[in-house]
């Protein structure tokens, strides 16, 4: 049985793959037709709607309210979200260090120069 987290991912993958906005019905059909089929064939539309509203709350999905049924689209591309997430990781803030531990923290210009020399030597 697929968890809500897995479904969120499946739905986002579908929305990121299509430029057009999709209805919950269309999304359910696409999930059911997916070659892997692991996500559960008998998926209820209400489940898809739950997933969509969770994603909407997280700011990942927006709803077109002027049509019935509502159509959903991703707010930005997967690449933009990745870039934003990595930006969060790479930018140094004193309190960020407690959230996650990077392999290498900030590198100053002089340090980077030393590192390049070191690589050239070895």
């Amino acid at each position: 049985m697929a968890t809500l987290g897995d479904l969120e991912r499946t739905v986002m993958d579908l929305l990121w793959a299509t430029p057009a906005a999709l209805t919950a019905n269309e999304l359910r059909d696409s999930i059911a037709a997916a070659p892997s089929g692991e996500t559960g064939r008998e998926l209820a539309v209400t489940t898809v709607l739950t997933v969509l509203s969770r994603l909407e709350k997280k700011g990942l999905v927006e709803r077109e309210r002027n049509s019935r049924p509502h159509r959903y689209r991703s707010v930005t591309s997967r690449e933009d979200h990745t870039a934003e997430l990595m930006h969060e990781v790479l930018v140094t803030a004193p309190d960020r260090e407690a959230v996650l531990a990077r392999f290498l923290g900030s590198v100053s210009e002089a340090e980077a120069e030393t590192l390049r020399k070191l690589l050239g030597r070895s």
Partner: protein
Amino acid sequence: MFWASYVLAALAVVLAWPAPIALSRAAWPARAPFTAMVLWQSIALAGGLSMIGALLLWGLEPLGESLTDAVPAFLGVLLRDDSAQELGVVHVFAISAASLLLAHLLFTLALTFMRIRRQRNRHRDMLALLGSPATDQPSTLVIKHPSPVAYCLPGGAHSVTVMSDGLMDLLTRAELDAVLRHENAHLHQRHHLLLWAFAAWRSALPWLPTSRLAQGAVSELIEMLADDEALRRVDESTLVRAIAIVGSGALPDTSADPLDDADGAGTGGARVRAGVSGGGPAESGTTTHRLRRLLTPLRPLNRLQQTAALSVAGLLVVVPPVLLVAPGLIR
């Protein structure tokens, strides 16, 4: 009790200024990062205890010879409306200051914990959508991004290590292994708890220059500890190469700027550049220090020196509580 409160106050001052400054300038922590870490923790703990203890003892002095007499008497004043004529305004002020300081420290600790946890959960949510599991490593995610990035996101059973495919393209298998072992050491040794406590101390007492020094020192020491753990499985040159490649590749002018394409306007790229080359004063030089001790391995402290440093740490934690009750004991 007067003398005890003065000793505690003196201890608080020493632990707030000279001691942390001396420790942050000392060279030996690179030779014994674990011992230095223990010492930093005891300085922070004993510093806080003696600050609060000095105020408390001084304020309660009119109520009894020792804390064991004074505390029940003070509770009587609070709960049973006993006469409080012995207490002057300054005493009430000192007691209030001690309580406020204690509450402030505990509250900041809790607040920092919740803020960190919220940010981690949000980050983990996004990773669930954007990352894909690494083929041969458990609880490791790969994220599609050109710049070489590796980090771990602690969270009990949900802890994950994340690496970018840009990193995987740049590093050999052995170097990648070194990076992963370094990150796993952070998770196994629970370094996030130390970072949490010292981040809280810093935001609770930002006016204390040593809270910044302590946080900087601690985040450098955990990197050294993780390096040492990685060295149990990979050789030094592999780890050094991994650090050098990630460090020089992380600079936008040596690799394609990762954010310019994705960001459209390119403002995000500029911000990353500022973040990478700027560095906080607390953190600048960490990479240099790490490399220096990997390239020319230092002799670890001998047994006597280790014991001495650990005894100081132990004494620091024991002395403030003893001083709190001692006046009653030697009476």
